[in-house]
């Protein structure tokens, strides 16, 4: 059973947005009604007039697409590169910490315990400082050019 034609389906037919079966049904309804014919013709005229008028406004703005930044500015550093930084920094960090520790352990027998502990703490702090400096230098080198 064919559903009754809805008025807005005239626009759907005009815009080619009806299914083929439904479009055929609406066309049959139009052909059998003078009132629908007049309404559809008026709609078609208005549509074509508006299309023609609107097309005059189209112009290509001078958008500087090539000047858009390569990526969206990211608040956090790239995880992959920072992971790589940590991995490559681990070895010198361990070495910087390990060598003074080995010396401290070697000398612990001859040193007062307090001095040994102090030396170990200072060695750890020095190693952390060196590692942080190296990381800052690498991040500075990897910053995109302004």
């Amino acid at each position: 059973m064919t559903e009754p034609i809805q008025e807005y389906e005239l626009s759907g037919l005009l815009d080619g947005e009806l299914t083929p079966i439904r479009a055929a049904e609406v066309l049959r309804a139009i052909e059998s009604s003078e009132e629908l014919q007049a309404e559809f013709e008026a709609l078609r005229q208005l549509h074509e007039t508006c299309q023609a008028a609107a097309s005059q406004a189209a112009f290509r703005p001078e958008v500087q697409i090539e000047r858009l930044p390569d990526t969206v500015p990211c608040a956090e550093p790239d995880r992959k590169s920072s992971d790589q930084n940590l991995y490559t920094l681990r070895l010198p960090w361990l070495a910087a910490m390990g060598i003074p520790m080995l010396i401290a352990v070697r000398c612990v027998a001859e040193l007062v315990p307090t001095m040994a502990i102090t030396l170990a703490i200072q060695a750890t702090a020095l190693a952390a400082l060196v590692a942080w400096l190296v990381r800052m230098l690498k991040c500075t080198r990897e910053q995109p050019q302004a």
Partner: protein
Amino acid sequence: MTSQRQNPLPRTAYADLLESLLPQAGGYARSILRSTQDAEDAVQAAAMRGLERLGSYDASRSFKAWWMTILRNCCMDILRARTARPTAAEPVETLPARMEGPTSWEELSEALARLAPVHEEILRLRYFGEMSYRELAQALGIPEGTVMSRLHHARKALAAELKGIDL
């Protein structure tokens, strides 16, 4: 769900998609702002804003619908700034309704501006933005069936406004 952590659209793909939309974007912005210079500014602003918000773009949906929504918001920003700070911009001439219907884009834009906002918006996107029903549905956040009925009623309202075509 799209998020900043997923790979956003590459800049080159974004630029390519945007390039294909520029003529309609220019016409659409110009119809709202009635100024070629302001239309260029709006499109440039929308290009930048779209790049900043690529993370919010769902690739399964229409890029045109997503980006034209951004463009519309940029046009509204310029209009608000223009209202807050009147400048010696291009004089907006109120053109009388023509019995034969609009013969220029300025006349059509003027006629649309006299309609209810919901009708003006869909007609502007349809004719100046050259958007399909699917794109209109996504841009306006309504079902495609509603696009058809809303567009039809908007056309009837426009015809009544023009006073030349009795639908």
